[in-house]
């Protein structure tokens, strides 16, 4: 290439990238980045208050408020815990799932959202198989939208409940979190990072609180670009080394439904990345073992580890209800300062 042209080009200005001024409803939670560190701290504190509150008082908070759960993908944990969380606060919930609604007849996400709004929904909790769907729904309805997982993109309430689990074990008794709360803590995220919204939300949330995140997995499931997602993220392909430096190990399922033709040798995968009791004892005997579920016993994790003393898998599920109470409340109630977390 002509060197002069190159040197000329360096000085050229180009059109600016538009800064995102997405007109969020202040109650929406589409990405973990919608929350400042103080906001995260408030959600965590509020989830504890709500968890401990008298159920008969708690259920007046959103008494008779209407919340729609709009689910385009199957779900056990997320759907049930959102539903229980909303009902614990007294809200009326209705579930619309893609397989038993007009979505099957070809109704668009926009029209489905507008229909729910016309039916009186005041907030929508959306699980969708397409990345970015929550933004489209919020733009179409201008309602508070809670992203309960959009494609391979984000799952913010999962990251918050994971954080609550990590704090309970590694920073017990802490009341407020800040930018240094997890300084010195390394969290390993292992497995199918490429297709994981849980990984993406945790990668954006945890470094903001001072944690180091180490990503571990084969190249097909963990591209190099992943390390560029934010500061505080590194890639370690050696599983033993990755867990050896970590206080929390987050195992991920291989998302067979999203592999899109990618061929994996599962025996090879298991040999390299399955978390076994032996491996755990040898390299991370004190770390907590997390998994967002659903777990595939005998694939990414052995039954012994999943049921073992280091496992926090069911604790995470329980934490999900508390976190989602705080997030659902935030969607519909502005706090006393007139703002939100």
């Amino acid at each position, binding site marked *: *290439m*002509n060197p002069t*042209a*190159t040197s*000329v*080009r360096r000085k*050229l*200005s*180009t*059109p600016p*990238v*538009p800064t*995102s001024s*997405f007109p969020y409803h202040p109650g929406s939670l589409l990405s973990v980045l919608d929350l400042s560190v103080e906001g995260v701290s408030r959600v965590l504190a509020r989830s504890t208050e709500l968890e401990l509150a008298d159920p008969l008082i708690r259920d007046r908070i959103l008494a008779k408020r209407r919340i729609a759960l709009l689910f385009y993908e199957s779900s056990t944990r997320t759907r049930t815990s959102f539903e229980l969380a909303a009902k614990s606060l007294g809200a009326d919930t209705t579930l619309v799932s893609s397989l038993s609604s007009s979505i099957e007849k070809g109704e*668009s*996400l*926009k029209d489905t959202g507008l229909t729910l709004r016309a039916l009186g929904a005041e907030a929508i909790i959306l699980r*969708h198989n*397409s*990345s*970015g*769907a929550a*933004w*489209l729904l919020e733009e*179409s309805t201008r309602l508070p939208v809670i992203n309960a997982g*959009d*494609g*391979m*993109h*984000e799952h913010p309430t999962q990251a918050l409940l994971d954080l609550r689990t990590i704090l309970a074990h590694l920073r017990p008794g802490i009341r407020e979190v800040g930018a240094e709360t997890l300084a010195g803590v390394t969290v390993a995220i292992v497995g199918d990072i*490429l297709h994981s*919204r849980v990984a*993406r939300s945790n990668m954006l949330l945890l470094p903001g609180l001072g944690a180091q995140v180490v990503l571990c997995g084969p190249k097909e499931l963990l*591209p190099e*670009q*992943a390390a*560029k*997602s934010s500061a505080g993220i590194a890639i370690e392909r050696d599983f033993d080394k990755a867990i050896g430096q970590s206080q929390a190990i987050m195992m991920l399922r291989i998302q067979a439904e999203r592999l*899109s*033709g990618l061929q994996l040798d599962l025996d090879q995968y298991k040999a390299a990345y399955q978390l076994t009791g032996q491996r755990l004892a040898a390299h991370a005997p004190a770390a907590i073992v997390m998994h967002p579920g659903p777990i595939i016993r005998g694939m990414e994790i052995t039954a012994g580890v999943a049921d073992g003393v280091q496992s926090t898998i069911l604790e995470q599920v329980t934490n999900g209800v508390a976190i989602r109470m705080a997030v659902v409340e935030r969607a519909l109630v502005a706090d006393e300062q007139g703002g939100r977390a």
Partner: protein
Amino acid sequence: MTILAILNGHLIDPAAGVDGPKDILLKDGRVAEIASPGKLKSAADAQSLDAKGLTLAPGLIDIHVHLREPGQGYKETIATGTAAAAAGGFTAVAAMPNTTPVNDSTEITRWMQQPERGAKVRVFPIAAATRGSKGEVLSDYAALKSAGAVAVTDDGRPILKDNVMRETLVAAARAGLAVIQHAEDTRLTQGASMNLGPVSFKLGLRGMPPEAESALVERDIRLVTELRDSHAHLHVAHTSTAAALAAVRQARRNGLRVTCEVAPHHFLLTEEHVGLYNTHAKMNPPLRSAEDRDAMIDAILDGVVDAIATDHAPHATHEKEVEFELAPNGITGLETALGLCMRWLHKEWKLPLGRVLSLLSAQPAALLNLKGRGTLAVGSYADVVVFDPKAEWTYRATESLSKAKNTPFDGWTMQGKVRWTVSEGRVVYTNPA
């Protein structure tokens, strides 16, 4: 046919080497006379347009547009698409064959050019390279050419099989037509909706690797090299990657007939413009990295790029108001090309006005061998754009004459306002201002 004189303007006709104050006289759809101001000999009966302070140039030529007819008139029609073309200063557009049905026949090729279509400017059909654009059996190039087709392509459905592409290049060369390739190895882009890179990872979208484009360009160039004796002409549509441009550059050094076009969005925008799933930043090839975008600018400035083409791809509003992955590819471009080229290529990056206009008229005309177009030499078609090169204005998608409003350039500042567009002697667009 009326006689039209355009007086007191500044004529820039790069192909004819003219850059100065000239009056021109248009008669019977052709340029009849060019003279210094006030010196036209036969202007007595002519209607006149006063172009004082304005620039006259050969009407712009866009060799890559989708007019959607036949079959997809809800997105755009030949009438509305060419109305947008006229508003953008274009007097000729080459229409891609991915219509419904695919334009692989002389019937459709002729149908598109019939006066009943209501075209404001000249439409040159580009025919499908293979039947149904299925990449298997070649269409009849000689017949298509005689029906008016100016090139062949399976745009959007690249010809992947080596043997079919080889046959296509040979047969098209025999018919005197260019083969336009939408270079994308679709085996590498399954399910992908944007460029592969840090942004696609962040957004959780499957990415198209730049190699999907460059590998096919390299394959095509290898075939053209092997077929050197048949003088095949390969034209690379909407080039978007540095690697593909490098391959074109090298092919040219090797004396091959390989040309390329770049779309305004590829020399202006990057993958970052996808923002939070803006479907108006979704097209194929996708917006690429800043390095790729800079390579487009370089290649335009140093002359490797043969034409600016918009890939005008109108879609109905409801089609773009969907999940990013589900949205169709493409943006409109006919009304914004000149304004963006003037604002950025000329004003910002100092490409001389004559070269900007050449990329938008003389060079694309030469590329598709459009005789009598892309110049205003006496005897040429009376295709003229008259514009104010200094005027700044703001583009409003809602005011578009296209049926579609899917543009990432809504609200952008443009430079160079079209005042009149004249197609074969008829004024087909007048700016109300």
